């Protein structure tokens, strides 16, 4: 149902040969990807594979050196982060980003500010402000922070901040939701809640999930792409990809291979550590 042939449904997101270099290092190397509405797509790979850079490129916090990004068929390669957000790309951060001085509720209100019905001078109108707050409370309920709505966000624990960050992402009313290691540092109970939230998203919302927890990936993602050294080395239905022996070897270390490779591509020969399954970007669309 997801990153299936382009003919089936128009892709909500289309990446074409996306490349980002830092000096001599190529962090993302010719990545192409198609996501249909409702896709649940995981991106996995060893540390330093370029997963977060890829998210940054999609969200607009970083610009590609080559390649194009299209949202709903419209090219957004040159649009800024804020513009992309208003077009419906929302994200969570690896390190949750909250305004510590404001209340938990205000954090979510601010996150939903530029979304929903657009009206001029809206910040002055009390009725609109109330409706914004009501929406924000709903998002807080979803992530289990409604009780803390009036606490300053600075008083939250790390795990709670992660949940608040997620609520802020949801408040962006996304068509495409980017989640950057949402389960890192969460306890099992929080992970269960996370699974519930993502599972309960409207079916039209496409999700890209960067995650190390294989269980979370297996549970949430219908499709999975494996990155190594910035290149797509495998992509396809999650179960198939995770079952491939090369991926298992690289990722779980079950075979004798790939222990040094997992520590990163930074030696420049990293591509060799994970056997290349899909050598060409065309296949990666798969």
């Amino acid at each position, binding site marked *: 149902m997801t990153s299936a042939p382009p003919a089936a449904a128009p892709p909500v997101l289309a990446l074409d040969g996306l490349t980002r270099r830092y000096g001599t290092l190529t962090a993302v190397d010719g990545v192409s990807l198609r996501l249909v509405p409702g896709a649940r797509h995981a991106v996995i790979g060893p540390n330093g594979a370029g997963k977060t850079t890829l998210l940054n490129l999609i969200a607009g916090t970083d610009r590609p050196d080559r390649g194009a990004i299209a949202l709903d068929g419209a090219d957004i390669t040159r649009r800024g982060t804020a513009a992309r957000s208003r077009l419906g790309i929302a994200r969570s951060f690896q390190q949750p980003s909250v*305004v510590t001085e404001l209340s938990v509720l205000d954090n979510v209100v601010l996150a939903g500010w530029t979304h929903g019905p657009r009206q001029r001078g809206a910040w002055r109108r009390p009725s609109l402000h109330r409706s914004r707050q009501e929406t924000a409370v709903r998002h807080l309920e979803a992530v289990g922070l409604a009780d803390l709505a009036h606490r300053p966000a600075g008083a939250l624990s790390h795990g709670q901040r992660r949940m608040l960050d997620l609520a802020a992402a949801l408040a962006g009313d996304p068509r495409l939701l980017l989640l950057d290691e949402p389960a890192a540092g969460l306890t099992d109970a929080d992970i269960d809640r996370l699974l519930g939230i993502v599972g309960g998203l409207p079916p039209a919302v496409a999700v890209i999930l960067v995650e190390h927890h294989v269980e979370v990936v297996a549970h949430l993602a219908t499709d999975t792409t494996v990155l190594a050294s910035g290149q797509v080395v495998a992509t396809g239905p999650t179960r198939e990809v995770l079952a491939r022996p090369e991926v298992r070897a690289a990722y779980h270390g079950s075979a004798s291979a790939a222990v040094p490779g997992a520590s990163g591509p930074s030696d420049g020969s990293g591509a060799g550590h994970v056997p290349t399954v899909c050598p060409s970007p065309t296949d990666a669309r798969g």
Partner: protein
Amino acid sequence: MDLLDAHLVPAVDGVAFGLLLFVVAAGLSLAFGTAGVLNLSHGTLYAIGAYTGAELSDGTWGGLALGLAAGTAAACLAGAGLSAATAPLARRGHLAQALLTFGLALIGGDLLIQLFGADELPVRVPEMLDSSVSLLGHRYPAYRLCFIVMAVVLAAFGTWVLTRTRMGAAVRAAADDPEMLAATGHNPRAVHTGVLAAAGALAGAAGVLGAPIIGPGPGTSENVLMLSLVVVVLGGLRSLWATFFAAIAVGEVQTLGVAVAPALAPYLLFAAMAAVLVLRSRFVEPATAHGSGPSSPGPVARLRERVSGWAAPLSAWSGRLPGSPAWRRAAPPLVLLAVLVALPALLDAYSISLAGSALALGLLAVSVTVLTGYAGLPTLGQTAPFAVGAYATANLAEAEWTVGPVQLVLSALAAAVFAAVVGPAVIRARGTTVLMITLAVGELTGAVVNQLKSVTGGADGLVGFPATRAWWGGPELAEESELYAYALVVAVVAVALTLLVLRSPAGKLLTGTRGAEARMRASGHPVGRYLLVAHIGAGALAGVGGSLMVTVQQYLAPADVGFEIAAFALLAVVIGGTTSVVGALLGAGLIVATRDWVAGSWPGHGPLLLGVLFVAAVYLLPRGLAGLRGDRPGGGGGRPSAPPVSEGPPPPGPPSRDDQPPSRPPVRDDGPASGPPVREGRPLSAPAPNSAGKVSS
């Protein structure tokens, strides 16, 4: 060839001057880059060396050697003392330290004048060097050539220590993460002290050796500080080589540039500084020190507790205020207003005119609050729009446009346009970089003020223009009480408008931008536009303040819009608590009272008193006057719809300091140092430690 020949001597002079600046700036850069102290008293350390050297110089080698030893040791000790003074502030960021060192510089300058007199001291170099040698057919002072050699040796030695030794590695590690340095068994406090002592020694040695080039005098400290700040900004903090070339460039501008294009030279420096800062999207900013080891309640903390103790009745009183939180929030401005209205009945004419000036400075301080506390752009350059407003009003008055409201609106407009033009350069940066860019903007404006004599009257200033009328056809405002009433009405309207905007959700947008810029962007907020609007608004407000100042004091001198005023405004904001508008007004009042009223009974010691005020404010009021109320910071300054702080346990710690929850490592804002270049990167969108694996950050 002729051209080269004619300019050879200034060019070699430029090298000598540049090397002198390099040695001084290397110390400044070391203190800022590795100990995290933006040392605004660094020029004073140079002056200590220069005075000592001049005092002990008697034209013999022994005198020079003795001077060098004594001057270096004195400045080294002063540097170590500075380390002890700034250590308690390690957790409070660069702003507090910068203000403390500025206060110490004011005190130190006063003491040096006490010790050595207000005149420039003559310096005698050893006779053997007190001659000239032939240099490609030109006579050139031997001492300067000798100085060039000594400076090169000094620079080479310093570079070797920093980059090749274990000690140097420890210094760089301390700059990055002092806690982790401690966890590897090194004492970060010792490193901190060592770095500042070494920086002091460098400045002191430069002072002794450079005394024949930049001699000891009352203006030495500021001159040297400004020039070395320019060098540090131009060179960045990463590489000593960059600092070196920047220093040589500045030296050449100051000598060769003056010889070739005298009219342009004053602009050149600060224009170059602003250009570099704008072009380089990120200036290397050292991480705020995490503090060294567990903090024990030192004498300062104990003193601070006592101050809070004195304030307890105040806080209890504010706790007993009747009515709703909204009323409690409105109370401080209303009480202040009542006092201000009652003032004319209580004070004599002179004090009333001072109160008028304080209101003008207060508006400047409020504009700094908007930028520093709400937009997160700590500024030393709000004197620039302040000056624009002031000179606009003065010129309007000279052109017989004397109607007050017209003057105010046009001045505010002019200042707003100015802020809109400068804004894009300022809002790209964050943190200490903003301090430096705005400093450049302020200094550049100062240079223009001194040059554009037809508009500004140059160094003489403007005086004798017609007085302002409060309304069309109204009488000229002449009496102090009339002027004060006019100033009060204007200030009340301006502050009320500011509070209205800040307490609307717009204030929240700014708070959000300051607190989590990456999140705001990712949620679709045009962050740059918000900051630009804030900058323009603050500029207009400063313009109103400038206009008001001209109306009240009826003359205008360059010093009224100089660096000191900028520092005062920032101090007023720090005294008041960075997000408190009322606090900023009170702070401005306190400063004017200290400078012109208290100091009036002790002539010549205004700087000393102000220095003491700076130091006391930084130590004793960590959260400003607003913090004394025992409330959340900004409680007096309008935190829109803040949850009512009622009974029940307060949130752990002051929210502004509470961005590190107990269970996670500090998120370090040292973006530049911890990853490959990110084109749009800003300290605020700092890479997550987790992703610091080379690619993702």
